[in-house]
């Protein structure tokens, strides 16, 4: 008992009395509390647990010794498979959120077939593993009771349907509302922001507009002790299935309007000649091969756009996080990866100039981007000018940030004479006298050791491979 490493509770795992997630010696575990024993037993004996894991709907886990439980009242302890990178719903593109929504409904459908039901529909319960969404909250299932309405209905509407509808019918950027509302977009707000025409769409009219109105109208009912108290609401099995089927159809019917943004077709309009592109691709491959040979396994591609160089990193053997601040680029990237069945690359909507903050209770419930840094290699191609000139980030600060993200760096220097930099400078005064390759080397050498320098053919750009100083 005494020589066992201390257990540390995961900061995001505090809401549910039925159990919690903790780490011991770096290993992730989940304790199941006695209060949930009946449902946990049914989850196992109904075959639902095994079926969900078999179908890839739920993260796999293995039972471990009960003595590992850090708190009394444990009836079981499991060790779920570790997720490579925990992403947040506001970091997903439209189709990622939509796939997560459909996965949640699929989990509910499977639960229904086993006499159980989902009791939670938070988008944070879904994570992406090998390119596909998977449920990570093993304690989300309880025994279904006859006549019971679908408990997480409101949560599903707020976490999935409302942001998806706003993105599809108003603006793709509105998924960012989830950054402000950790529990999902309030339905009265969604109803107000949605275009008027959505009142004519049966699904959105019902699940968002009428839903929001009902919330307002019955907001005082909870304290009323009369016969129509909400606890008395019942629903037949068929009706519940019809409701879930309708939700699924509504989600499936939501599509993004087909138009790009300034960034999404950026990959095709760089300043490179054909020779320059070939040279850059070959050099990036060579530098990443060297990083991989040095033992790196996880790469973060910053400013990945639609993933040309993420693909090179993946083929060099890396598991890649492809970060970009443009939702349309992330959306396109995700759709292309999904269509190709590519499992090693995960695109996420994260811009480096304003990366995801830590949110939720005590600012620790959901970690910031930097708090989740786990890369062995950071790849920053065609990025330096956007931050240094586009966002006035001094080069030493850029070097500091990259040094916080990973021990190895592949970075591209883009000189001032480059047409893309000239384009950035065309509308503003040049207040960047220090923006030179010499200045860049000097600023970066304070944090990194330059291992290799490789000029790109037919261009004045230079690729660097660097190692963080210890």
């Amino acid at each position, binding site marked *: 008992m005494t020589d066992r490493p201390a257990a540390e509770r995961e900061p995001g795992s505090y809401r549910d009395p039925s159990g919690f997630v903790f780490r011991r010696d770096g290993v992730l575990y989940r304790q199941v509390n006695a209060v949930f024993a009946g449902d946990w037993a049914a989850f196992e004996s109904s075959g639902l647990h095994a079926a969900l894991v078999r179908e890839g709907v739920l993260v796999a886990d293995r039972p471990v010794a009960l003595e590992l439980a850090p708190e009394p009242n444990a009836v079981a302890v499991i060790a779920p498979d570790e997720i490579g990178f925990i992403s947040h719903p506001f970091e997903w593109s439209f189709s990622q959120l939509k796939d997560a929504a459909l996965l949640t409904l699929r989990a509910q459908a499977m639960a229904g077939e086993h006499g159980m039901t989902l009791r939670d529909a938070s988008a944070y319960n879904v994570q992406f593993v090998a390119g596909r969404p998977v449920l990570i909250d093993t304690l989300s299932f309880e025994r279904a009771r006859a006549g019971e309405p679908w408990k997480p*209905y409101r949560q599903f509407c707020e976490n999935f349907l409302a942001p998806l509808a706003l993105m599809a019918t108003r603006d793709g950027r509105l998924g960012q509302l989830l950054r402000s509302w950790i529990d999902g977009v309030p339905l009265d707000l969604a109803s107000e922001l949605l275009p008027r025409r959505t009142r004519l769409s049966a699904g959105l009219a*019902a699940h968002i507009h009428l839903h929001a109105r009902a919330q307002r*109208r019955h907001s005082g009912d909870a304290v009323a002790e009369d016969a129509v108290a909400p606890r008395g609401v019942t629903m037949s099995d068929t009706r519940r299935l019809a*409701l879930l089927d309708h939700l699924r159809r509504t989600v499936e019917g939501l599509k993004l309007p087909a138009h790009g943004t300034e960034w999404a077709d950026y990959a095709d309009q760089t300043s490179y000649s054909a020779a320059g592109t070939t040279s850059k691709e070959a050099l990036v491959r060579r530098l990443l091969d060297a990083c991989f040979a040095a033992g790196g396994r996880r790469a973060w591609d910053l400013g990945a756009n639609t993933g040309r160089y993420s693909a090179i990193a993946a083929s060099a053997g890396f598991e890649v996080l492809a970060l970009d601040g443009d939702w349309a680029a992330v959306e396109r990237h995700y759709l292309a990866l999904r269509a190709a069945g590519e499992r090693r690359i995960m695109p996420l909507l994260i811009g480096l100039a304003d990366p995801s903050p830590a949110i939720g209770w005590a600012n620790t419930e959901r970690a910031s981007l930097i708090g989740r840094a786990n890369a062995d290699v950071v790849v920053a191609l065609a990025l330096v000018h956007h931050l240094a000139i586009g966002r006035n980030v001094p080069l030493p600060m850029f070097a500091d940030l990259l040094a916080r993200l990973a021990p190895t760096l592949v970075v591209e220097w883009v000189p001032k004479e480059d047409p893309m930099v000239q384009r950035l400078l065309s509308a503003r005064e040049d207040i960047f006298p220090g923006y030179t390759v010499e200045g860049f080397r000097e600023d970066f050498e304070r944090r990194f050791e330059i291992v290799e320098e490789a000029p790109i053919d037919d261009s004045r750009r230079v690729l660097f491979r660097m190692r963080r100083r210890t």
Partner: protein
Amino acid sequence: MRLVFAYIDPGAGSLIIQALIAAVVSVPFFFRNAIRSTIGRLRRKPAGVASGSITPEDAGAKPTAAE
């Protein structure tokens, strides 16, 4: 006559509207499944599928989320 904002419980309205919506959408749901099972039965007859396998009625009643 809205309550103080912090005391508003949106859960009650969600439950009530859920029951209402479910009642309404269960009608087309029922008919869709009926049509599907009829088509299934017509198709099945010439094929001579053994009874006891999963029937189209069963399949139609599940809200199977697409991949």
